[in-house]
C-alpha cells in the first residue's frame, strides 16, 4: 500500500504539532521514523490512522484520499506506544479482537490468535488477563493483536522498547518476516538508531513536527542533510576549515570541493579515523572502555577534536599512547559555518 502525505498539519486543540509535513512511502516499504522525544512521531502515526484529525493537508493510501475516512475503515493499524490492551478480555481474546470485528467465526479466530501468540513466543499465556503479564509480554501481545488485523499499513510506535536485546532481535525478525508474508507496508517509530538503520529501507528524521531528511540508512548516516541530522546519530566530529577557490583546507587536511568560498565544518564519523595505517593526523589515546564484544577508545587529536572509535576487543590500546593516524575522508560532508 503506497502512502502519500501532502502538507499535513495536525495537532491537539490549539497547538499544532505537525507542520506542513509531506512524506511518501512505497508499497511494501519499511520506513523508520526517528526523532527526539516530543517531536510528533506518535502524532504522525495517529494522524495517518485517523485518530488525530488532520487540520490541513491530505493523506492518500493507494491513491485513495483517506484524510476524512473514519478510523476503522482505513486499514491502518497502530501499535500504540502505551500498549492499550483490553483489560476485560483475556490475552487470546485481545489478539482475536480484530478478527471478531472482521466477522471471523469464534473457533477460527481463537485458533488464529493462538497461532499468533505462538509467533510472539507467548504460547500458553492465552487465558491470562493482560494485567497478569509483564510489560514486555504485554508489548508482544499488542504486536500479535496488531498483526491479527492484517493491516495494509502497519504503524509501530516503539513496539520493542520494553524487550531485552535477545527478544527484541526475535521480534524484529518476526515483524520483517510477517511484513513479507502479509505484504504490509510498515512505519516503525523507534529511539534505537541502530534498529532504524539496520531494519529499514528508508529512514525519516523528524524534528519539531517536520521531516528534515528521508532517505536510505546509508545516506542518512553518511550524508546528513543538516548538522541537526548529523548530531542525531551522534559521534560525529567536526573539523573547522575554509573553502577557497574550490579547495577545503584545515590542519593537515586538504581536498577539492565544489562548495562556495567560506568557513565550513567538515563532518566526519569515527570510522574515518584510520588507526591501522600511519598518516598525518596526530592523536593520543585518552580513554579505553571495554564493552564486551569491542572496545571504545577515545582519541584526542592535537587540534582538540575528540574521536570515539570502536575497536576490536583484542586491540592493545592504553591511555597516553600516541600515534599519527590516517584520515579516510571518503565523500566529505561540509556544513557552512554561520556563527
Amino acid at each position, binding site marked *: 500500500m503506497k502512502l502519500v502525505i501532502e502538507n499535513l498539519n495536525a495537532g491537539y486543540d490549539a497547538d499544532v504539532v505537525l507542520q506542513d509535513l509531506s512524506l511518501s512511502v512505497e508499497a511494501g516499504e519499511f520506513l523508520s521514523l526517528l526523532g527526539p522525544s516530543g517531536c510528533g512521531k506518535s502524532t504522525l502515526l495517529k494522524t495517518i*490512522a485517523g485518530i488525530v484529525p488532520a487540520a490541513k493537508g491530505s493523506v492518500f493510501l493507494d491513491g485513495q484520499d483517506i484524510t476524512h475516512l473514519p*478510523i*476503522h475503515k482505513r486499514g491502518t493499524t497502530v501499535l500504540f506506544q502505551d500498549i492499550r490492551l*483490553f*483489560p*476485560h478480555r483475556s490475552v487470546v481474546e485481545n489478539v482475536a*479482537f480484530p478478527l471478531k*470485528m472482521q466477522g471471523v467465526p469464534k473457533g477460527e479466530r481463537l485458533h488464529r490468535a493462538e497461532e499468533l501468540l505462538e509467533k510472539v513466543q507467548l504460547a500458553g499465556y492465552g487465558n491470562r488477563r*493482560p494485567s497478569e503479564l509483564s510489560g514486555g509480554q504485554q508489548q508482544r501481545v499488542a504486536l500479535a493483536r496488531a498483526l491479527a*488485523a492484517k493491516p495494509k499499513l502497519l504503524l509501530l510506535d516503539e513496539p520493542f522498547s520494553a524487550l531485552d536485546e535477545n527478544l527484541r532481535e526475535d521480534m524484529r525478525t518476526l515483524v520483517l518476516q510477517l511484513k513479507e508474508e502479509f505484504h504490509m507496508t510498515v512505519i516503525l517509530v523507534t529511539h534505537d538508531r541502530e534498529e532504524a538503520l539496520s531494519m529499514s529501507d528508508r529512514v525519516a528524521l523528524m524534528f519539531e513536527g517536520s521531516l528534515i531528511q528521508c532517505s536510505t540508512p546509508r545516506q542518512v548516516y553518511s550524508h546528513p542533510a543538516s548538522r541537526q541530522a548529523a548530531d542525531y546519530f551522534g559521534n560525529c566530529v567536526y573539523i573547522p576549515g575554509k573553502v577557497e577557490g574550490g579547495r577545503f583546507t584545515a590542519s593537515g587536511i586538504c581536498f577539492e570541493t565544489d562548495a562556495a568560498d567560506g568557513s565550513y565544518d567538515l563532518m566526519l564519523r569515527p570510522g574515518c579515523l584510520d588507526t591501522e595505517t600511519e598518516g598525518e593526523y596526530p592523536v593520543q589515546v585518552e580513554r579505553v572502555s571495554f564493552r564486551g564484544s569491542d572496545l571504545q577508545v577515545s582519541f584526542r587529536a592535537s587540534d582538540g577534536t575528540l574521536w570515539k572509535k570502536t575497536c576490536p576487543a583484542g586491540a592493545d590500546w592504553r591511555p597516553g599512547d600516541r600515534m599519527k593516524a590516517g584520515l579516510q575522508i571518503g565523500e566529505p560532508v561540509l556544513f557552512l559555518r554561520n556563527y
Partner: protein
Amino acid sequence: MKRQTTIFLLLLPFLAVTGIVLVSIWNVLVQSLGYIPAFGLTKPTLDYYIQVFSRADFLSAVWVSVRIALWSAVFSVCLGVLLAMALIKCRKTRGGMLYAVRLPILVPHAVVAVFVIQILSQTGLAARFAHALGFLEDYSAFPQLLFTPSYLGTILAYLWKEIPFVAYFVLAFMSSISDTLGEAAENLGASSLRSFWEVTLPLSVPVISRAGLIIFIFAFGGYELPLLLGSTLPKALSVQTYLVYMSPDLLQRPLAMAMNGVVLLLSAGMALAYSMVIYRLNRKVGGVK
C-alpha cells in the same frame, strides 16, 4: 503523637457528621422496636414491624417508591450514558457545554417540581403550545401526566435532574476509556458504535452502576418530588412515613420508626448487593477500578 492529633482534628468534621447519622439510625432502630420511655413504652417488641407489613397503605407505598426509584434509575442511567457518549463523540468534555449539563444538577428538587408543573400540567406550557399549534382541541385533551398514581410526573422530574447527573458522573471515566481503549478498538476495525459496545461500555459498568445506585437509593427515599407531583393515593414511602410520624397520636411513633427501619434496611441491603456485584466485576475485569 502530634501527627495523630492532627489526623484526628482533620477527621473531626467527618466524625461529627457520621456520629450524628449513626445516632439517628440508632434512635430509629430503637424506637422502631417500641422503646420510647418518654411515651411510657419500655418493652422491646417486633410488633410494629409485623404491623407495618400487614398495612396495605405501607405495602403499596413501598411498591410506589420502588417503581419510582427503578424507572428513574434505569432511564436516567440509559439516557445519561447516551448523553455522555454524545458529549465525548463531539469532543465537548470540557468547557461551556459541560456547564449547561451541570445546571440541572444544581437546581433544588422543589424548584424542579415547580418547573414540571408549569410545563407539564394540563394548563402548562406544553399544553398551551400544543393548543396554539393546533394539535389540541382543548387543554383538557392534554394527557394527565402529573398527580397520577403512575407517578409519571415525579419520574419525569427525577429524569430532568438525574440524566445530567449520570452524564456528569460517568463523563470523565468514560471519556478516558474511550480516548484510549475505545480508540484502540476502532483502530483494530471496530466501528465507533461497536467500540462503545465492546469496550467503553463494559469497562464503564462499575461507574455507571454506581451512578444508578445513588439515584435509586435517593429516589427511593426522596420526599419532595413524590409529595409535590404525585397522587394522593397511593403515597410514596417517605410521604407515608412522614404522615404517620407527624400523626397527633404519639403512639403511632414506633410504627413510623419501623417504616423508617424498613427503608434503612432496604437501602443497606441494596448497597451491600451492589458492592458485592462490583467486587465480582472488578475481579473479572482484572484490576480496573
